[in-house]
């Protein structure tokens, strides 16, 4: 029995815990004076956290050699999309209440919403092509190329948070730092993969 077979359902439940806690708080009227703001924040927080956790799978896998971790990555990514949908619908329905002039203006004129909306849109093709069938249809190469969009999505998510905060940048900068490490890891891997730079190309050109 592979460990992953046990871990996967447990992780699934763990990913639902933030939503469950939100529900419990809502039931007990513990969402504070501005419940819609609280729901928007919590769902946004978990979208970003799950995105970063998803991005952490590959480095963790390479470092530990535990390849089975890859089997968890799709579920984590889809949960990030799940919370993103909750976050977006909270904004669309509870915050704006389908007030389309406000929605369009916000998306067009508020940079933090533009970038957040763009990141959400980019998540959709990733979610749609997450199935085994889709991986086969696209072929590994095309699938991998498409799913590299997750880097842009994560950057967009961090910018969304950074640009919406009134003054206290502590939390957004923390996410930015974690993202920088996760992206930096991938840059480092690529640099190593292509070996040392060509010595000939390094020689200064004599004019």
């Amino acid at each position: 029995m592979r460990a992953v077979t046990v871990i996967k359902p447990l992780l699934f439940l763990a990913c639902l815990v933030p939503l469950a806690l939100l529900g419990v708080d809502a039931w007990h009227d513990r969402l504070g004076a501005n419940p819609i703001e609280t729901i928007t924040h919590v769902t946004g927080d978990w979208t970003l956290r799950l995105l970063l956790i998803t991005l952490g799978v590959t480095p963790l896998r390479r470092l530990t050699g535990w390849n089975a971790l890859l089997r968890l990555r799709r579920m984590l990514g889809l949960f990030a999309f799940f919370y993103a949908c909750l976050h977006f619908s909270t904004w669309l329905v509870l915050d704006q209440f389908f007030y389309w002039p406000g929605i369009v203006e916000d998306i067009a004129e508020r940079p933090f919403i533009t970038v957040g909306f763009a990141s959400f849109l980019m998540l959709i093709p990733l979610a749609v092509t997450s199935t085994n069938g889709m991986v086969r249809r696209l072929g590994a190469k095309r699938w991998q190329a498409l799913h590299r969009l997750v880097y842009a999505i994560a950057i967009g998510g961090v910018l969304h948070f950074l640009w919406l905060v009134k003054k206290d940048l502590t939390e957004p900068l923390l996410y930015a730092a974690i993202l920088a490490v996760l992206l930096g890891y991938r840059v480092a891997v690529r640099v190593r993969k292509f070996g040392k730079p060509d010595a000939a190309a390094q020689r200064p050109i004599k004019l």
Partner: protein
Amino acid sequence: MLIRKPSDIRPAEITDPAVYLGRRRFLATATAAAAGLWLAPGAMAAQKLDAAGNSRFSTAEPSTPYQDITRYNNFYEFGTDKESPAKRAHTLRTRPWTVAVEGEVKRPKVYDIDTLIKLAPLEERIYRLRCVEAWSMVVPWVGLPLGALIKQFQPTGRAKYVEFTTLHDPEQMPGQRSGVLDWPYVEGLRLDEAMHPLTILAVGLYGEVLPNQNGAPIRLVVPWKYGFKSIKSIVRIRFTDTLPATTWALSAPREYGFYANVNPAVSHPRWSQARERRIGEFLKRPTLPFNGYGEQVAELYRGMDLKKFF
């Protein structure tokens, strides 16, 4: 100052019993943290204030529940999230407290706060409060008209602005250890704004002494401006001929101006000001120019480009 026919102001109305009951329920189920607020050393917490009934300046809209007014606060001196001030403001010592009246006045003086409060009769003023973050409340303040005090301070002919300063003591206000804003918090008004009958110094809400997290023991309330103008825990009132360098305008000059009049037509650079969420309501509502006090204050800004002087 000519006070025209008030728009939504009606004769005194009894506060909705549900609101009072809500307050009683809150007091009955107070947690230890809340109990700490009431037991602030030397404070007259939970003490009733003898205030004249609803004034003609009060709105008839229902007041926001007490527990929301006292648990959802922007008071960075106690942390940058909305819940921290209620949890952490118990370290503020509201007595003894002095307010220094300085600058362009005939007789500068350091007042003990209890003397200052007696300079004019206390009134209940039920005002809308609109935060720049696009949420709002209706708060039944207890306070004194600032104009009545200013007359007694006797500003000289050179006084054009009034500058207010908050206490600066990181030991009492732990949020001041962070550099999120330049401390102490400073705000200011033009002299005619300060003299306007709507402008008050508040010392209480819901008929009781101001809880610490709402800016005890004395704070400004300017209901037609964004909430950050209504500076809390005031220790100094200075009359000056130069425009005060206000904290939020210093911190982000593109986003926060000196006048900060509530204006749905002028967006914050990063979000719209056209609508607001009234705390406790589900749907957003349109924001009114001057927070609905246009009839009373618009003439102060006649001829001013309110996009430029935001």
